[in-house]
């Protein structure tokens, strides 16, 4: 339903970017509202756009089941880091823009009746980069999971360690992996979900360590960013390099899961990993996942349109390798289904990478 425009304007301006988003995969112009309603999946080709933390929680958790923990954690500029702009200014700008204090939200909730400890990342906050706060939230999520014997679910969306926190950001790899080792030893399950992108130090710590690793289709997942590679090796990169399917082919991901199946897949896995948690009924006695009217309609609509599957949407053959620069245009986003996750503070913008948001680019950390 694009509005007819006066002819003196250039064609491209027909789509004000805060209303329309171009699908990087099929080039279709999508009305943001529709996109939000369809869980930010392109109705034409199935391309998965990035989700804000709030939208992610709404997608995965049962209605009003989310209880946020540690909302007040905030990074400190321990290094006095200044590049083109002081780090505290960047933090403040990201906070203003997203309504988040940092790039992760954690708490507890229910997935199809199963209680879980959950931590989700938001790429919109400095490229989802991991500094002390993200590391702390992941660690506390693991520690709570251990203390309460709750299965842990972490959804990653990150370019890697946050350069502005230097080696203190690198140390978050050790902090989080240490906590996960304790969880592992205690036999508490951990499901890792990798969304676009999961690179650098986040991939090389908690994201890759799931008892079960899931990934969204075509998500960029890898260790080294393109620039690190370009500086070190001169080599052709294989097609589909560092995409979810590539990782699947090489044995590092159990299942590549369409966003709309994610919730039911996690619930299904939990029925194996957490026997006797009170919601362990035979699958036929319950729907695969709760029916959400909007989601149901859009998924119906999607089934009518053939899914073209993942396409190469990125400029570089390797997808720009790592972090904020990858994945091309993504448009703006805010959560769908407002009111669903309850205590999650306010609304936020989801990842909206531009060519210049680079903080989150994968370090090789």
């Amino acid at each position, binding site marked *: 339903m694009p509005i007819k425009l006066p002819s003196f304007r250039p064609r491209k301006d027909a789509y004000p970017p805060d209303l329309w988003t171009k699908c990087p995969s099929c080039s279709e112009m999508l009305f943001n509202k529709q996109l939000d309603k369809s869980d930010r999946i392109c109705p034409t080709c199935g391309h998965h756009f990035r989700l804000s933390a709030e939208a992610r929680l709404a997608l995965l958790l049962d209605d009003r089941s989310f209880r946020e923990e540690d909302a007040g954690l905030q990074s400190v500029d321990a290094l006095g880091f200044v590049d083109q702009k002081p780090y505290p200014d960047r933090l403040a700008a990201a906070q203003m823009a997203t309504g988040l204090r940092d790039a992760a939200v954690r708490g507890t909730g229910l997935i199809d009746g199963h209680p879980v400890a959950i931590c989700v990342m938001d790429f919109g906050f400095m490229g989802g980069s991991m500094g002390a706060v993200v590391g702390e939230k992941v660690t506390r999520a693991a520690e709570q999971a251990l203390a309460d014997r709750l299965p842990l679910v972490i959804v990653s969306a990150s370019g890697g360690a946050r350069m502005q926190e230097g080696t203190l950001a690198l140390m978050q790899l050790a902090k989080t992996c240490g906590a996960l080792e304790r969880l592992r030893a205690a036999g508490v399950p951990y499901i890792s979900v990798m969304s676009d992108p999961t690179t650098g130090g986040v991939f090389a710590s908690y994201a*890759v360590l799931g008892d079960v690793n899931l990934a969204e289709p075509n998500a960029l997942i890898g260790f080294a960013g393109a620039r690190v590679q370009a500086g070190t090796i001169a080599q052709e990169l294989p097609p589909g390099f560092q995409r979810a399917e590539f990782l699947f082919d090489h044995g590092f991901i159990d299942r590549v899961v369409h966003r709309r199946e994610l919730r039911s897949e996690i619930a299904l896995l939990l029925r194996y990993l957490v026997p006797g948690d009170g919601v362990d009924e035979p699958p036929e006695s319950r729907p695969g996942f709760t029916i959400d009217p909007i989601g149901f309609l859009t998924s119906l609509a999607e089934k009518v349109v053939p899914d073209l599957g993942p396409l190469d949407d990125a400029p570089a053959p390797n997808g720009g390798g790592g972090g904020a620069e990858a994945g091309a245009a993504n448009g703006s986003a805010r959560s769908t289904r407002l009111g669903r996750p309850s205590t999650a503070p306010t609304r936020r913008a989801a990842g909206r990478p531009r060519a210049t948001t680079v903080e989150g680019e994968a370090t090789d950390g």
Partner: protein
Amino acid sequence: MVDRLLGRRPGSTDDATHDAKSAMWNRVQLARNIRRPRTLDLLALMADDVVELHGDRAFGDDAAMACGFARIDGHRVAFIGQQKGADTEENIRRNFGMPHPEGYRKAMRVMELAERFGLPIVTFVDVPGAHPGPESEERGIAEAIARSIGLMSRLRTPIIAVITGEGGSGGALAVAVGDVVIALENAVYSVISPEGCAAILWRSADEAATAALAMRMSADDQLALGVIDRVVPEPGEGAHADHAETARRLRAVIVGELDRLGRIPLPELLDARYRRYRTLGAYTETATPPVPPPSSRGLGDRLRDLLDPARWLTGKTGSGPSRRDEPAAREEE
């Protein structure tokens, strides 16, 4: 701290900034000096005997990672360390000290041996970064690094990590989780190479020295941050100038730590190790949640936007405080 003040007021003290930058860059160059003593050089000088072990039992042997047993002042230890070459030919063979996943998996294999046979572990860290190429990704470099970090965090034997040269990111940390972390005076430690950091944040690899300074990657800075515990002074112009003296100094420190850690009961040691990393990272905790939410705009505002030509002509997002238009965390250059 001088760096901090300088960093915050760019341009106000150009000369001092310049000096601080060159001093930092000089450190980076020393850490990368081709004549710097490597893992096996140091061991040959400080150990009574050395037995190298090879292979990850799954894929192959990685010459960029040296592992094995050594006897240092009567202590039997397992050692692990990246191994750069002393010349171009050896560097090619050893991939410039950048291990592939099999290197880290070999290291893990030897760590587990050490645990089973009650040997403390000494690691020598000197790596620009784990190998970043496609083979490395295909074989799971991230998985190998994460597993190694996790393993070291719980290994039931004392671990001493020594940053001897370049402590390059995850490829370094994968063998640098320990009960005590020591660095040679001119070693550096960073979350990303200064070149990589400069390329991303300054959009120019020429700013590597600036990035090195901003990341505070020198051993002294890392000591101040609590990431490392001890700095061992290097002789004369640096470790490259006197391998024997460097090894002698390092040996005394390692032996002292082996004695000290050997006296700590294991459960206590493991708790302290967990806490060491658990407490790294700076944050504050406020009771009240949110920062003010991005201002919400009603239908009326959006209709006005539609009708406002100025908006359309910008041709991109990011103008105005619309809730969708988060200001770019980084302004355009």
